[in-house]
């Protein structure tokens, strides 16, 4: 479904070039759950944004369903079936949760339809449907609504940047179940051991390069020693 070929991303910091991602290549098959993990600053979010088109790579190629999408816009990628849940959800003054669900699903949903997406992420839906997506919502509520939008969009490749951040244990269980269903392809950035355990493939990024990749069985020792424990990864 997705193939990254030699993705590099450089920035200029204090008049010096700095490599954020260095020659990253990976592939994700249909229906896989892939977790990208690694220390803070290893380039995980940058990589996910490059796939969505939010950041343009310095070099390299992105193939989605066999088509080169490296130079196409965010919204074209979205229309092709790529969805993205931000690590820090964006807030809007005026636009309501229902507005965003309607935009995501390209139709005017009934209240019952819209509520289904919210219920799946552990929100008591009717309380939220008409609320503006603004700072009056808590961080955890915004995070769950962000995931509900991914569900409403019904994309084929869903990228979620630290979806577990700020959500309660009950909602986290629902999240693990959702990703575990394998009805869609998920690329999830996470430090959470429970998500890493159920992943088909884990990619460990360090300093902008892929340090290791494989399933949990193969990488367990490396991950446990290097990432999960150090980052307090138990859910």
């Amino acid at each position, binding site marked *: 479904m997705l193939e990254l070929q030699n993705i590099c991303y450089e920035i200029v910091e204090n008049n010096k070039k700095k490599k954020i991602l260095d020659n990253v290549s990976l592939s994700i098959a249909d229906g896989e759950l892939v977790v990208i993990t690694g220390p803070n600053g290893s380039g995980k979010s940058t990589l996910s944004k490059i796939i*969505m088109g*939010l950041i343009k790579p310095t070099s390299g190629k992105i193939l989605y369903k066999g088509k080169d999408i490296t130079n196409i*816009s*965010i*919204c074209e990628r*979205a*229309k092709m079936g790529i*969805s*993205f849940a*931000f690590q820090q959800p*964006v807030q*809007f*003054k*005026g*636009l*309501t949760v229902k*507005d*965003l669900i309607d*935009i*995501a699903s*390209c139709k005017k949903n009934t209240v019952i339809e819209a509520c289904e997406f919210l219920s799946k992420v552990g929100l008591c839906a009717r309380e939220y449907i008409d609320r*503006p997506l603004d700072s009056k919502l808590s961080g955890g509520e915004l995070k769950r609504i962000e995931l509900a*939008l991914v569900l409403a*969009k019904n994309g084929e490749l869903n990228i979620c940047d630290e979806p577990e951040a700020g959500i309660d244990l009950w909602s986290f269980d629902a999240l693990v179940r959702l990703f575990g269903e394998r009805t869609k392809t998920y690329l999830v950035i996470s430090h959470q051991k429970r998500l890493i355990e159920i992943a088909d493939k884990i990619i460990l990024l360090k300093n902008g390069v892929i340090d290791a990749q494989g399933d949990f069985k193969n990488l367990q020792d490396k991950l446990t020693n290097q990432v999960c424990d150090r980052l307090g990864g138990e859910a």
Partner: protein
Amino acid sequence: MNEAEKKLLEEVSALHEIPQIYNIRLNGKLVARAVDSDVNIESKADKDGINIYVKQGTKNKSVHIPVIVSQKDIKDKVFNDFYIEDNCDILIVAGCGISCNGNSSAGHNGIHSFYIGKNCNVRYVEKHIGDGDNLAKRELDPVTNIVLGENSTLKMETSQLRGVTRSIRTTKATLDKNAKLFIKESMLTDDKDFVRSVFDVELNGMDSKVDIVSRSVAQGSSRQEFVSTVSGKNKCFGHVECDGIVSDGGMILSTPTIVAEDKDAMLVHEAAIGKISDSQIEKLMTLGLSKEDAEREIINGFLR
């Protein structure tokens, strides 16, 4: 009334829904009026305008008083006074649609005064719409005076979205004991439009409350000025929020003033002006909207 005038009428006053009570003014003249046993409308004897009398205890009624100006070089000025007795629960829909093109001008100056008794619940919806090319001058100078009685609530929703080239809007209110005033203002200007919106609210009564939320978008090389003064003269609460979005060469000036004349007056103002954030546009683009559609959705939501 021609088709263009009918369309304007629908937009400013929702008159396609056939209201019970109405007074329609077209190009400076009364064209239709309907009243009932609870709400009476009379033309003023000494000047242009009407008196609207709402009897004590009137509930679940709506009064529509739209104005349409579609002839060039008309400068319409009316005085509309609302006398709302105690214990009423009503909706008032006012507004003005103004249309002219080419090297011409048209204007309307509606001076609305509300005398609201005790224990009332009034919703006042006011829409101003301009239609025509950018050569013509379309000018609206609405004045709203409010005297809000004890335990009464007035919810005012006022909007002026595009097409009005110059406008000075003035809203003055005095609130009695436990009276509550909620104002939501939405403004969108473009091209070389100019709007100045002035609010002056006096919280005289104990436990009175005002909440003013102004949302404005200044596009093109338009200019908007928001000037509010809320004076707390008793134990009261006042909140003023002015949010603005500027794009192109638009400009917004916001000067909220709060004056506490009583130690128990609690007054708050907030003002935030800026462009649409890149992250908001990007978020909507990840949901499949183009950049232009994303901006439109953000502005529509903001002004709603």
